[in-house]
């Protein structure tokens, strides 16, 4: 899932300064399950902003709504009327959701209420951990199912650096050394020979380094001759 966390209230209040009618839009997908931007969080943020604005003597009208998926037009259209009523929209979606709202409602000011942090998963209740960087050329088949691009602090491809100690990364003891995890996994599977091969430099063109990415599936397009 995409994991995000809410911006500090003060920062959000600065972003919405001057707006009289504010709509907070939550998202029912990733940010709901990581407890940062679902219906509950949207409601709490709306009332927090309302109260704070009243205390400051410049009350703002703050409503909230939630869409099932903020990253698809069809779902966004469900809040069209509420958006029309507002001067400004606070998106509690990930960065994709914020941009989808902004693109769908070009005359509205749309601001982010979350910081989108990573693609990852909950490893225990209340703890999320990064798992994927979307490099566009998955090498998990070579690394025992542990990603060194997302999980090694130096994105090494040929084994651990000299700072791996007791299973920890050199940057801090709370971070697992991805290469220790890879080593242990491959050793247990009797596949250590994979680590003896020299992995060549990665072709980063498939990653963000090749410029903004787009996937086109002609077999799925309804209007294949149209512009993308």
């Amino acid at each position: 899932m995409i994991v995000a966390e809410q911006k500090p209230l003060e920062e959000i209040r600065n972003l919405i300064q001057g707006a009289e009618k504010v709509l907070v839009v939550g998202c029912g997908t990733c940010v709901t399950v990581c407890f940062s931007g679902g219906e509950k969080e949207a409601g709490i943020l709306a009332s927090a902003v309302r109260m704070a604005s009243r205390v400051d003597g410049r009350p703002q009208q703050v409503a909230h709504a939630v869409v099932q998926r903020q990253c698809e037009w069809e779902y966004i259209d469900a809040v069209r009327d509420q958006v029309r009523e507002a001067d400004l929209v606070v998106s509690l979606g990930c960065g994709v959701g914020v941009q989808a709202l902004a693109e769908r409602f070009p005359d509205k000011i749309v601001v982010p209420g979350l910081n989108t942090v990573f693609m990852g998963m909950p490893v225990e209740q209340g703890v999320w951990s990064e798992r994927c960087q979307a490099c566009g050329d998955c090498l998990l088949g070579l690394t025992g199912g542990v990603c060194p691009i997302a999980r090694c602090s130096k994105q090494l491809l040929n084994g651990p650096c000299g700072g791996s100690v007791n299973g920890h990364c050199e940057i801090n003891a709370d971070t697992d050394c991805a290469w220790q995890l890879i080593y242990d996994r491959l050793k247990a599977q009797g596949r250590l020979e994979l680590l003896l091969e020299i992995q060549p430099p990665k072709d980063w063109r498939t990653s963000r380094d090749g410029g903004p990415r787009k996937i086109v599936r002609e077999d799925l397009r309804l209007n294949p001759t149209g512009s993308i």
Partner: protein
Amino acid sequence: MSSANNGYRTESRLERVLRSGQFAVTAELGPPKSADPGIIRQKAVLLRGWADAVNITDNQTAIVRMASIAAGKLALDEGLEPIIQMTCRDRNRLAMQSDILGAYALGLRNLLCLTGDHHSFGNHPQAKNVHDLDSMQLIQMVVGLRDRAAFQCGEEIKGVAPRFFVGAAENPFADPAEFRPLRLGKKARAGADFVQTQLVYNVPRFREFMARVCDLGVDKQIYLLAGVGPLKSVGAAKYMRDKVPGLDVPNEIVERMEAAGKGIDEKKAKAEATKRVGIDICVELIQQMREVPGVAGVHIMAIEWEEAVAEIVTRAGLAPRPNGTAGH
């Protein structure tokens, strides 16, 4: 090429010393956190004649310092044989290769390929790090520039190709311990000519590492220089024992440093006595390293204590150094 160079791969003086079978000595020179060339010259005078080659560090511990290539050129002009350290942290493959061409054009002949300390340790933790290549891939790239006269992308170098004697680093004390000798073998296969190890204070553990390196035959593929360094104070010893990831400083060494200053009240005399023992320990470590099969030399890391190198080399019986004039 090979006939003109009598079979040497490069014009490196260090290559000549190592190939001759003499026990090699390398040292380290840290560039200043300023644009002052005088500091390099002062340190060069302290090291000149006491080491076959001298590492010029590259933003060591991720702290901005004078560029290693620029400092290396200054050191070269002072008569040192520099080993340019290059980390993968701050530059992508384009920047690295252009720097490598420039370094060679300036007369530098040794390059040490490193991953680099993580930038969160340094003075610009807000920076974007690079790690386009890892150290293994950097070794391959530098070897390719030399032996295939080709850039990393495969394009041919038309004209002078940079011919570096290629170094690598290994930490025998990091984890997973059983993978470390294999990783060194991988660096040898990538084409590294020599390797310098992390500081050795735990000799039994180092011997185990070297036994495995020799079992694998890696000592025949790469010249290995064991890292040693004089401890300057009890505080430094404790810091290295407790705070530096991947360093193994046994308690006996810390205790010996503590004992050195016992009973001395005057602060300066106490510090001096402790430093003396730091040098004694370093000399003993070198003597022990000379007995370990597969060790071709020592790399003395006297960080910000360059004046200690002459005494250490002399007392370890490694002076005078071969003049190595076969090089440049």
